[in-house]
């Protein structure tokens, strides 16, 4: 009697065991570094979903969203799409350069926002998609079925797009990582510089699965903009 044929998981494990360096390069090489400590700690990875949770209204999720639209990966400017679930985005918050490469989708219903995100990810032309559900009615956000999130994750994985979701509570079951912003910011912050605010943002990063610990970055993959040595965030694995 012949041995059973190996399935795809066996082959994948075998390849990982045989070529661990290649796997490390694939994972770390695709990570997007924004220069924002808390965002880089959460890790925005192409092909995955990152969730930004802000349970209280003014904890800085809008600031992170604006920073992600502004962020350029070195000199390669990318098109960014913002699926605005509550039609709340203020274009005056961005620089003209960032506006020039932003595709803004103004939605009034959560269902339509999810459908629009689906279309964008299916298209595969936009490498960074931001879905803002922060001000959407909580009831509607809870009604998004988990299959929809899984479908979005698969589409993102297939097209290699980084999907960032901004929610008022933990709503994305298949997010690779999650940044919880739960500190209310005082009124004085409205006068502070954004760069200062971004570095002082506090939060908690939750990652999915133990196998996703930060991997040692290979020498050839070092980037000019390094992550600060001490992150002002608490890592909860």
């Amino acid at each position: 009697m012949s041995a059973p044929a190996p399935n795809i998981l066996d082959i994948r494990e075998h390849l990982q065991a045989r070529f661990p360096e290649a796997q490390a390069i694939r994972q770390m090489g695709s990570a997007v570094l924004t220069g924002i400590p808390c965002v880089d700690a959460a890790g925005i990875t192409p092909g995955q979903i990152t969730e930004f949770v802000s349970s209280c209204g003014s904890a800085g999720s809008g600031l992170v969203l604006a920073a992600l639209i502004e962020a350029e990966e070195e000199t390669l400017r990318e098109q960014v799409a913002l699926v605005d679930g509550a039609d709340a985005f203020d274009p005056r918050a961005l620089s003209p350069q960032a506006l020039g490469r932003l595709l803004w989708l103004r939605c009034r219903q959560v269902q339509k926002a999810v459908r629009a995100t689906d279309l964008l990810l299916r298209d595969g032309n936009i490498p960074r998609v931001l879905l803002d559900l922060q001000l959407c009615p909580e009831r509607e956000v809870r009604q998004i079925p988990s299959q929809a999130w899984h479908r979005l994750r698969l589409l993102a994985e297939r097209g290699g797009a980084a999907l960032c979701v901004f929610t008022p509570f933990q709503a994305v079951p298949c997010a690779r990582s999650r940044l919880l912003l739960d500190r209310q910011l005082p009124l004085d912050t409205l006068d502070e510089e954004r760069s200062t605010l971004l570095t002082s943002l506090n939060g908690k990063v939750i990652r999915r699965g133990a196998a996703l610990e930060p991997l040692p970055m290979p020498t050839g993959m070092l980037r000019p903009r390094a992550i600060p040595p001490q992150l002002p965030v608490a890592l909860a694995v």
Partner: protein
Amino acid sequence: MSVSHTSIYAALWLPRFQLQAALRAWPDTPRVPLAVLDSDLTQSPAEAEKKGHVLHANPQAERAGITAGMTPSQALARCHGLILRHRHPEEEMRAHADLLRCASHWTPHYESTAPGLCVMEVSRVRNMRGRLEASGANMRQWLVQCGLQAQVGFAGNLDMACLAARAAKDVLVLQEHEGCERTLLHQLPLAVLQPSANVTEVLQLWGIRTLAELIKLPRADITARLGMEGATLWDMAAGGRERLLRLVRPEVAYREVMELEHPVESLEPLLFLLRRMLDSICGRLAEVWLVASEERLTLRFENDEVHERSIQLAEPSRHAGLLLRVLHTHLDGLTTASPIRVVILELTASAPDARQSQLFQRGLRNPNRFAETLAQLEALLGAGNVGRPVLLPSRRPGAFALKNQVEALAVTSGVLSKDDTPSPEEGIAHGLPLRWRRPPCQIRVQMHEGRPAAMNIPEGWLEIVQANPCSLLSGDWWDCHAWQREIWEVAASDGALYQIAREKQGWMLDGMFG
């Protein structure tokens, strides 16, 4: 002037052109005295009676004494049974098109000289030199089949060929050594040269009636008195000018029209037809190394309604499958009240894009697919809700517009155009961005010592624990849409930071900082 060894010109002339066209339009007209007025169908009979003049009369009418230039009253007074017809511009265009089609059967080198007159260069037509008269007869025969009577003239010069056509009974070949025919040519009336009204009047006063009488006058004197027009007329009468043909080049249209015997009611058969049309047009485009930059679809329905749509392609292409997908995306969201009877598809041809990819910009992987996705998104979210935001030069809330992303990509996406330049905004790099509440929400605010102390938003009453000093904004004071706002940034008891504003109609909740 003679037929030289290097060039032969043939002129096809339709005498009484407007009359012939009118007879083609009304073929049942009896063979009685008939005249065409220089009025058209848009004029009422009373207007035609007042303003119209006889343009052409048929031989029966001419025998009754009707001549060009008579008023309708004069003509009717001369001939009781005279039938008066208006001009028929559409039929004239069709008759002239038939004339040009006849010329195109002989040579590609022809010009549309005047209504009812066409000149062609036939020097390079094989076996033409020895049998000019027979060829002329063939041309006439071809036009007779179209219902047109023509006269054909051959000469070694453009203008002389035109004169020969006018002097011909059927076909006239102007040879070098035949003086009698030149004499015949010079006996033609001055009207064949179509001088302007002023010049005609002057020449009539001088007693000049024919070409022969005109060329007896010294050219220099004619030029001194009648200017350039006089000189041109003298040259044409004396032997023609040296000029080139203004060649007619038919416009190539990448267009397919399909009239359906059985009207189409669903999408599938329509897509099948469109695919066939696209295959045909794309094949023609491929032959000339061109691509399509725009698709124009016209659908005519049974209830005579028409649907037209122009779709700009993000990246020019002649890939039929891709072009069909773009049409499919558009048709998906289309509902009609009646079945489709006629389908017209036209592609705008352009040269393949030779643009270099940008050095510091990542391009789209598939621009056409992206354009298609944008169309789907627009169908989902509504027009005006998808695009690239562009700030308008105003500080009024909502002073922005969304531009088509595909058009934005067609221009250099890294460079902002002049109208894209936003007004300087000093607050960009400071504080938390505002998330607007759209549509705006009216609230109630309680004031205490000139500052907001509590506010009633849709979620309930909130105590205002801290408020920044208010800022005042206004604009458009020069017209009726003037606005002014008193803006407060406040921290509420729920821990969130809000922006509220007092306007003429009361307090508004602008949104939340986040």
